[in-house]
């Protein structure tokens, strides 16, 4: 054996490769357009947010940010695009709380460690909105009515095991309601559930501030509880769940943020997060957030990962409790 010419070549090449890598790391980032992969089709709230962010990010990064819609397969097509990479910071993806439940239920080959959690942008506290014709117009009345009339009250929400469903179960447990006191009717989206309540096909529904606000301000829906520590600025008359007298975990929230392929270097994640934080401070982004009634809440890589870990654990616990774990 010994030192064959081949080994020398390999050694020289690896040194060169290492030097090249160092040079890339030192080079200005980003050096080419960034691809921003979405799991939704154009037109929805997540898509619109992504396009506003992309425009604001371009100014911070000095590179084009290309928004790519890869809807379908419950996010599988977006995950495949992220896996393809490259994981050098030039590929990022949109993420919402739904990804966590989907990793646990449908795309079981993935978990929260399959991607890097770069930045959280906005949170959406869950809320509960009752039809004005419902027999209860507050959470206390709901609890009392449901206990007296089990199986008579219907709540419309997103699919079984979704964030909204778990939010309802968290509240329901804190109210001390038996499992079959209220019927949970699953719909294709949170919005569909709200529409069902507007039409009188359910007594109340799960929602978010931005989805419910147009109906709350016109008295077509009555928000009876917001799942957060403080009241929403946009719905100042709607009590929080704690104010209504129930001790439910308000850390359970819908969120939207940015992920990157596994193995994206930490310094680049940091650079991206910093650019996103600055982009969120621009007047254009702030105006959008105000118009769209979103609640901005930035978290950088470390804090976002920790927040997601907690959501992941909560999801696992609840899916097991609800016997929906797969």
């Amino acid at each position: 054996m010994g030192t064959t010419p081949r080994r020398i070549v390999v050694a020289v090449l690896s040194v060169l490769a290492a030097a090249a890598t160092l040079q890339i790391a030192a080079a200005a980032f980003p050096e080419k357009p960034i691809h921003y992969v979405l799991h939704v089709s154009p037109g929805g709230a997540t898509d619109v947010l992504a396009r506003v962010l992309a425009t604001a990010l371009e100014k911070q990064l000095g590179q084009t940010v290309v928004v790519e819609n890869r809807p379908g397969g419950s996010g599988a097509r977006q995950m495949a695009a992220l896996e393809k990479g490259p994981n050098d910071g030039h590929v990022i993806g949109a993420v919402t709380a739904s990804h966590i439940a989907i990793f646990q239920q449908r795309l079981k080959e993935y978990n929260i460690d399959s991607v890097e959690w770069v930045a959280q942008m906005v949170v959406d506290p869950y809320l509960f909105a009752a039809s004005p014709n419902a027999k209860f117009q507050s959470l206390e009345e709901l609890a009392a009515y449901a206990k007296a009339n089990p199986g008579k009250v219907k709540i419309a929400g997103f699919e079984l095991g979704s964030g909204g469903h778990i939010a309802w179960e968290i509240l329901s447990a804190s109210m001390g309601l038996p499992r079959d006191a209220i019927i949970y009717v699953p719909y294709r989206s949170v919005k569909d559930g709200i529409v069902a309540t507007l039409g009188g096909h359910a007594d109340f529904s799960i929602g978010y501030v931005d989805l419910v606000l147009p109906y709350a301000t016109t008295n077509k829906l009555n928000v009876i509880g917001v799942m957060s520590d403080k009241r929403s600025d946009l719905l100042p008359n709607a009590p929080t769940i704690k104010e209504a007298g129930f001790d439910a975990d308000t850390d359970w929230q819908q969120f939207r943020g940015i992920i990157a392929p596994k193995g994206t270097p930490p310094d680049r994640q940091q650079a991206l997060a910093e650019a996103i934080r600055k982009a969120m401070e621009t007047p254009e982004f702030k105006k959008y957030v105000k118009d769209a009634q979103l609640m901005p809440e930035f978290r950088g890589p470390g804090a976002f990962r920790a927040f997601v870990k907690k959501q992941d654990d909560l999801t696992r616990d609840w899916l097991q409790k609800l016997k929906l774990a797969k």
Partner: protein
Amino acid sequence: MLQNLMLGFSALASLKAITSLMVGILLGYTVGCIPGISASIGIALLLPFTFGMEPVPALCMLVAVYMASEYGGAIPAILVNVPGVPGAAAAAFDGYPMTQRGEAGKALTLSILGSGAGSFLSTIFLILTAQVMADVALAFGPAEYFALAVLGLSLIVTLSTGSLLKAMIGLLFGLVLTAIGVDPLTGDNRYVVVRGLLDGIPFVPALIGLFALAEVFFMLEIANQPQPKMPTKLSLWSSLGVLNPHWGNVFRSSVIGYIIGVIPGAGAAIASFAAYACEKRLNKGPIPFGEGNPDGVVASETANNAVVCGALAPMLALGVPGSASAAILIGGLMIHGLQPGPLLFTNSPQVPYSIFASLLIGLPIMVVLGLAGARLWVLVTLIPRGVVATMVGALCLTGAYASDNDEFSVAVAVAFGVIGYLLRKVDIQPAPIVLALVLGEMMEINLRRGLISGNNSLMFFLSSPISGSLLVVAALLLFVSLFTRKRAVA
């Protein structure tokens, strides 16, 4: 209201607005003609380009694309039996036989005039009833949707030509296919053998395969046979009169299209099938439906364009989209900081009213462009079949890819092309399969949702007046048809 409408017209009184309207119509035609790029996909593709525009021209352009693409789908349906959008499938039933008889010009003229008339009538309905219709949209809950899906499926007894048994086989095949994909309520995987099937069989590629690619295979098979008759030319003046015998049909189909458009989740495909079935029942003319009856083309095209205004009604009045395309238009509103919902008419009346105005201004433009186009498109019938088949085949595969940006969709289109070809060889038509693909999920999910809501009692579905009457109509349709068919055979 008139004052607001004037406000709408004045918002459009700029070169920019009129230009975007024209661009929208031309893009819509193109989008509609290409199988695979349906109205909703066309709007979605165009949406990002409107972000930099003023809200009013942007929305008018998107609405124009929506309207024109629902018409454009009829062109390939009539000329080569390949519907460009799902809502044009019924236009091919009689449009293509007309082409084979040498009446391509007449069929195309009827389709554009029918589309124009349907759009105009439904725009008037929209202006007068948008707010009321929002309540109709809300009246549809699990029981009503289930009943609507059952009624839709029962149309098959009217729609099918030839053997009812074979139509039922097609229908059941389609229903079985809708079982594939993630369970819509519990998230369990059902027959997801490859990942592309997680969301079920992609609808547009399946449609391309069943209708378009299967037709391409047929064209290749008969490529050496003589071409259809040279189309007879219509003078522009006489072409304006061809719609005259069909006004009753236009009115009925507009009403059907408008109401079905209002109901979220029920779109152009269902509306055109329903209007077609209605006219077929009423038909007393000499030519049977399915063999080139002009009323079939008029019914389908009028209804699928009336759907557009129907879908806009709950979207503008309530923020609840009446169709997939309207859902994307909501994104177009949101990006401009406009909150779709019950306050839109109060807070920003210029938006809904300029959309109304743009429909009224855009319609004559759409009809003139369509009539001019019709004279040009008939020349397609002179191209040798082999060449047409190759071009259509290439467009189909591109369209299948564009519908999802995914190679898997191309594979689905090809697989369904082969299935469609083989089924037609044994005389099972694609229409029942497509009807099942359109309605299967609506039926399943609302049956299960209704059972959850109603404590597992089937009576829940008869408890509301709407669902009860829809189910009764469906049952009548089924029994009456079975009875009359039997008599016709005997």
